[in-house]
């Protein structure tokens, strides 16, 4: 498989290691009332779809960036490659806004 790195261009997948489902970026809030249940689901349960799957790949033998790769698990075709950092920053600012609206503590 060739992963088209957004900064470095096409790279062999053998340069990367995979962590798994990209939803792992979205770590549950440890302070939440149902944190135990949500961490159980976060750590152990997976959707494991047959088709498009968003997953985290780490460019270990390259620039050491984390990528979110959207890949078809039936054909190995890669539909989209994004920097995980951008997605994580967006997620963090979205959850901050949400917390702000609810009047939660900073």
């Amino acid at each position, binding site marked *: 498989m060739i992963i088209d790195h957004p900064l470095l261009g096409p790279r062999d997948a053998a340069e990367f290691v995979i962590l*798994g489902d990209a939803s792992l970026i979205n770590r549950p809030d440890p302070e939440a009332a149902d944190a135990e249940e949500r961490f159980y689901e976060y750590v*152990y349960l997976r959707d494991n779809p047959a088709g498009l799957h968003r997953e985290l790949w780490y460019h270990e033998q390259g620039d050491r960036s984390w990528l979110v790769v959207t890949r078809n698990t039936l054909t190995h075709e890669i539909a989209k490659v994004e920097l995980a950092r951008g997605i994580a920053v967006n997620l963090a600012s979205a959850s901050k806004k949400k917390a702000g609206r609810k009047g939660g503590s900073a």
Partner: protein
Amino acid sequence: MRYSALSILSQALSGNTGWKPVWREPDPKEHYDVIVVGGGGHGLSTAYYLAKEFGVTKVAVVEKGWLGSGNIGRNTTIIRSNYLLPGNEPFYELSMKLWEGLEQDFNYNAMVSQRGIVNLFHSDSQRDAYARRGNAMVMAGADAELLDEDGVRRLCPFLDFDNARFPIRGGLVQKRGGTARHDAVAWGYARGADSRGVDIIQNCEVTGFDIKNGVCKGVVTSKGRIKADKVAVCVAGSSSRVMAAAGMRLPIESHVLQAFVSEGLKPVLPGVITFGAGHFYISQSDKGGLVFGGDIDGYNTYAQRGNLPVVEDVCEGGMAVMPMIGRARLLRMWGGVMDMSMDGSPFIDKTDINGLYFNGGWCYGGFKATPASGYCYAHLIARGEPHPVATEFRLDRFRRGHIIDEKGAGAQPNLH
């Protein structure tokens, strides 16, 4: 018809014209006591033991493709019970005992060949770990023997003992381990189940479940709805897909494992050899081909084919331990899709939905487990309680913190 020397002789004398199909091809009935979803090794053995040991004969096995078209047709046929943990070892030892009596039990030649398995070690710490494993095996009633370097030299003189990076210091041997003929295992169980009244329905895909108020009353298939008191899912490789139709998320990812066969050679390997430093295992089939494999590809896939970096990795492992295989030509390779569970151990359990049972998460160790998996699953379905050696294979073990982490790799399916 029972197979015997006499039946073979009389067929030979009558030109082999009297052989009959080994199982029927029935249409689905309206209602069954138990529907087993999945006609692979585990599904067929479940149906067989349900009928034979537990007296449940109104059973259907529903298979999406043809019988044995999944992982039982796509593995490296090794049987062994060299596990460490108390949740695992007695289960695999029961499986080993069932293998030993299998052919007599179902009157079919599964070519069970106990030619032994040796796990090589390369360092003092690895030797200690294998000594501990061997002790755990003996305590669970299995057999184990720790060999030093000379012992392994006598057994497999052709290995690369003086490899600069991974010199071979010895090995843990299980003499009762070996191989079996994978397709014949499926066929033998199918025949045994069929002759006891089990309907084996091929080319019939389960697309959904008939679940009302938390009770499962049957399945929706490509051949219509079939009702049942109990539905037992047994579709390793596709577990997530099938159980999603029942609204369940599982602690499972699907990964591909590749395997390889060389051209046919004269007998060279005494048994199964595993390389403890890399991940490489090899045996020789009765036709002479070297059958070998290594690591999984490591990412989610349902493609039943792998990628080249792992081919290279497996071949490097092979060359490191056994340089002579560099002269053999590779004949074919294939990939099987497996349920990689979060701790590398399987599930045989009821679900929260009444009447719905789940068996899966076998990672790449499902073949050796075929007899005990079917036996214990049938026990659970028929009696409503787990078999004593399969009490730890629960779906909720992660929530309870009682994982069976044989490899100590944590919740990382691609490391098991």
